[in-house]
């Protein structure tokens, strides 16, 4: 089989593969897409308050505050307000209106103290979250411990590189090519590759 025949056969095989996958995808794709997150709606007041806290934990800017206010509104209007201190919730709403985010966070957390204290141990996919803790930064300034670990790591890097050079193969690709050349004549395109 000539090289062109081989390439042509290879192209046909790959083309069939692409077509098969295309058909499979088209057959498997539903008419309307499903989304993982849905609309996140819940009627439980304390969960709505937690969602407000979640928004504030991730974004204290305008968008985060707006999303949180929407959740607080929902919590104030839902029928299921068991364990939620509505008075504190209303104060939290006012704090959000006034853009006092830290105060709003504290009030929101306080407003669901009773609800989260009565939660049973989490099962299934329940979060088990009672207090919404803020994100923890990777690090602050470098400590003595950081300098110690950093220095040891640098030393390991130097030692590792030195050993890698020490134990490198004796022949590079060009030398190997030269050694093996008498057995098989070099091919023009491969020689170019070796040179590069």
């Amino acid at each position, binding site marked *: 089989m000539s*090289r062109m025949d*081989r*390439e042509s056969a*290879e*192209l046909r*095989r*790959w083309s069939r593969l*692409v077509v098969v*996958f295309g058909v499979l995808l088209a057959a498997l794709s*539903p008419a309307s*897409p*499903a*989304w*993982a*997150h849905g*609309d*996140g709606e819940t009627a439980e007041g304390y*969960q709505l308050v*937690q*969602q407000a806290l*979640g928004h504030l*934990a*991730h974004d204290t800017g305008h968008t985060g505050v707006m*999303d949180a206010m929407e959740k607080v509104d929902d919590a104030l209007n839902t029928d299921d307000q068991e364990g939620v201190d509505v008075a504190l919730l209303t104060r939290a709403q006012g704090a959000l209106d006034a853009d006092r985010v830290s105060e709003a966070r504290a009030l929101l957390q306080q407003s669901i103290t009773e609800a989260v204290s009565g939660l049973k*141990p*989490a*099962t*299934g*996919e*329940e*979060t*088990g*979250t009672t207090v919404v803790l803020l*994100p*923890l*930064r*990777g690090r602050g300034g470098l400590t003595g*411990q*950081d300098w110690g*670990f*950093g220095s040891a*790591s*640098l030393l*390991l*890097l130097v030692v*590792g*590189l030195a*050993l*890698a050079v020490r*134990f490198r*193969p*004796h*022949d590079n*690709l060009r030398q*190997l090519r030269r050694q*093996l050349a008498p057995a*098989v004549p070099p091919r023009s*395109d491969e020689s170019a*590759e*070796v040179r590069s």
Partner: protein
Amino acid sequence: MTVTGDTSVVEPHRRGRARRAIDVVDDRLGIRALEYPVPEHGNKLTWSLGGVTVASLVILIVTGIVLVQFYNPVPEAANQSVRDIVTHVWGGRFVRSLHFWSAQAMYVTAALHMIRVFLTGSYKKPREANWLIGVAMFGLVTLAVFTGTVLKWDQEGYEALGHNLELGKLLGGAGLWFSPDFADRVPILVRLNSAHVVIIPGLILVLVILHALLVKKHKISPHPALPTDESGEQAPAAEPTEPFTHHLRRITAFGIALLGILGLLSVVFPPGLGASPVAGIEVTKPPWNFWWLFTLENWVGLNGILYGELVFFAVLVILPFVDRNPERYWRRRPVAMTLGLLLLLFIIALTILMAVTPAKQHMGM
């Protein structure tokens, strides 16, 4: 020392104490079986990426053993226990950070290893089964990254879990394990923890051993820019060889250097931890390893993740059976190279798209 052919004569004149000690051990454990010859090109960095991946795995296992001493997989305590590791355990932030960066390294080096195998046609006859084992290991590494993300039990981890639960539903019976109903009295976090610390690494270790045994059986594939033997499947007998122990020695050197790099990254860029998880909101992006899938989700919904992943792994699985071109040199495989490049560019483009898409835009669809 470079040798050709029989390696039983390697350095017979050096009989120091260390050598005698090795002899004593060898008499009992047969460790000299590791001195089988490896073609010299196998010691190049690009051909040692599998070994570097194993080095990452070793770092992951060691740091993981430390972390499980302090991590509490109960939902009420998981997030706080990670905070405690970072803030109260001596060296805890560094160990956690090293675990994180080792996971990134393992993912990247495994991917690079697979790309090298693709470029050099090393998956071709008779090495198809070993390619499949490699694909399975890459799938397990992806699962390990996913479960590790969930174990932090912050908003990012919880949202990743939420996606996975929905994917489990789409899979029907096949996704039962990922359903909270599978063991409804046990938090799914506890089950994912067992998967992350026992099942997945255990399976990876078993496959690593199989992978290594098959590499030994079929030998390192020939370098496509060098001549092959008559079968076209092996390096020529004339190519210099080195004992496999020398290959291990070089991989160890790469592993030490990698540990240094990861240690520096761990000090300078330790990962943070997100806020406690809250159900019903989506405000984070997934880890970068999954960004291309989430762009697909933005386009076509949850099915995009499922079918994107299925198609990706299906392509990898059938590759050696579809690509029957015996050529290994990339210039003589224009179709495979073009399609491989297109797939890679597609994934990179989707990843970049997610990188520039605000997290909020991913919400509320």
